[in-house]
């Protein structure tokens, strides 16, 4: 117990200095004003929060939420089978599978995202191939659409979903499945009532990682979405670095973090009740 607290001390100290204090500063700044030069004036004001309720910002905020949730759902749908496949492969293959999934993501996402520009633009690889095959007559506009942004996000965050689900599936007791099939459960039933609940922690971790990374990502939106699609993080970044309206940027950050917290809590609760239902089904 004492040793555990001693182990915690450096972590706690670190997080206090480099996480809590900076976040507190942001909260404080969100309630201040700025002067005409863009300097923060420490007098109480709700100006930052009032600006947020402009219809323009609310619209962008809504778009951000929709895109982030969509990215998370699609990532989950495509990554789960992949993680499942890797977790059930022979041990040697598992290692290679993980390495193969991770390596491309050591290349900076800026470069990876530009690769999608090469693929998607009007004279790009995809359009060229489709036209050669005669499937389309004229190039399709793919770049600078919301679909392109969604694709770029999913592409960039697949490993964040695969890795945690893999970890959860890999440590699952596989004998449970044998037991289930001995007792006459179909493959689907065994998956539904054993594998899925056991991988719940992985799904939750992966979903949170992907969701938050998507909400915080502004580069992909810039590159694949063009000027049309803005995300809330584009605005936060420009308020801090370009427009120099720190109070508004901070207010946006605070609202944003709080929304994420609420969404994640709701999601946790939903997952919980699902697991409970699964338990009832098994009983």
């Amino acid at each position, binding site marked *: 117990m004492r040793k555990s607290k001693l182990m915690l001390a450096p972590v706690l100290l670190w997080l206090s200095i480099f996480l809590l204090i900076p976040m507190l500063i942001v909260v404080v700044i969100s309630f201040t004003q700025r002067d005409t030069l863009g300097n923060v004036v420490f007098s109480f004001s709700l100006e930052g929060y009032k600006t947020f309720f402009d219809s323009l910002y609310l619209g962008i905020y809504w778009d951000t939420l929709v895109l982030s949730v969509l990215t998370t759902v699609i990532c989950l749908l495509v990554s789960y089978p992949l993680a499942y496949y890797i977790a059930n492969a022979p041990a040697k293959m598992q290692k290679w599978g993980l390495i193969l999934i991770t390596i491309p993501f050591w290349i*900076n996402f800026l470069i990876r995202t530009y690769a999608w520009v090469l693929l998607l633009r009007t004279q790009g690889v995809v359009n060229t191939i489709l036209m050669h095959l005669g499937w389309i007559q004229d190039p399709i506009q793919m770049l600078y659409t919301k679909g392109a942004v969604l694709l770029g996000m999913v592409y960039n965050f697949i490993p964040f979903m695969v890795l945690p689900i893999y970890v959860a599936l890999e440590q699952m007791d596989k004998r449970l499945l044998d037991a289930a099939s001995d007792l006459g459960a179909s493959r689907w039933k065994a998956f539904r009532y054993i594998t899925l609940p056991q991988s719940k922690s992985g799904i939750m971790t992966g979903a949170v990682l992907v969701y938050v990374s998507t909400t915080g990502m502004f580069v992909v939106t810039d590159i694949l979405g063009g000027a049309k699609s803005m995300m809330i993080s584009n605005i936060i970044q420009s308020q801090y670095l370009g427009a120099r309206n720190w109070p508004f940027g901070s207010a946006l950050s605070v609202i944003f973090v709080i929304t994420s917290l609420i969404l994640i809590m709701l999601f946790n609760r939903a997952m919980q009740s699902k697991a409970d239902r699964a338990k009832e089904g098994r009983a």
Partner: protein
Amino acid sequence: MKKKTHPLLGLHSLIMMIFIYVPILLIIVYSFNNTRLSGDWKGFTFDWYVSLMKDRHVMEALSNSLIVAVSSTIVATIFGTLAALALRNVSRKLRVSMNGLLYLPVIIPDIIMGLSLLVLFTQLHMPFGKITVIIAHITFSMSYVYVVVTARLTGMGRQLEEAASDLGASGWQTFRHVTLPQISPGIISGALIAFTMSLETSWSASSWLVQALLRFPYIYMVK
């Protein structure tokens, strides 16, 4: 006895691998492209690699990125694992609040964390450079390690460790021979995520690099 997985699963995984690797291969192909600006194929060349090797800035940036990624991964992995292990043995109240604290960097988008650290470093008059970047990277990546290792520990149960200490193993021996081997997949995944995140976040690349399409991506602006 091992059950075979469904062939459709294999197909799906194959398609996913293709999906993941096509853009990467495209980048590699274009890195030999004999043109500066357009994305069209203009013939084969090694010029980019030659100028890459000659470019001191790029090489320095590359080494900076690797220094940052490696050192922040090491510290973050140690911190994250320590926290995950320690939190098993503390009171429920402390565990819940520490857990919340450790989840914060995951939940707060890195843009917001980055900017808040920017504000802090400005207030402290800390010069921006490798150290501040490493600090930022440790702060957000230790949580990822913590999350993954905790998931592993939760699934593991404590029977084996209890058995080991019943059989006379010391605390360290139990840790070294029972706990560590069991949680190592979690630690490795966590470290991989931390390393990946660190290289990821080096987006503050100067834009000329992007135009050339390949060229090494891992750039930090170091003053």
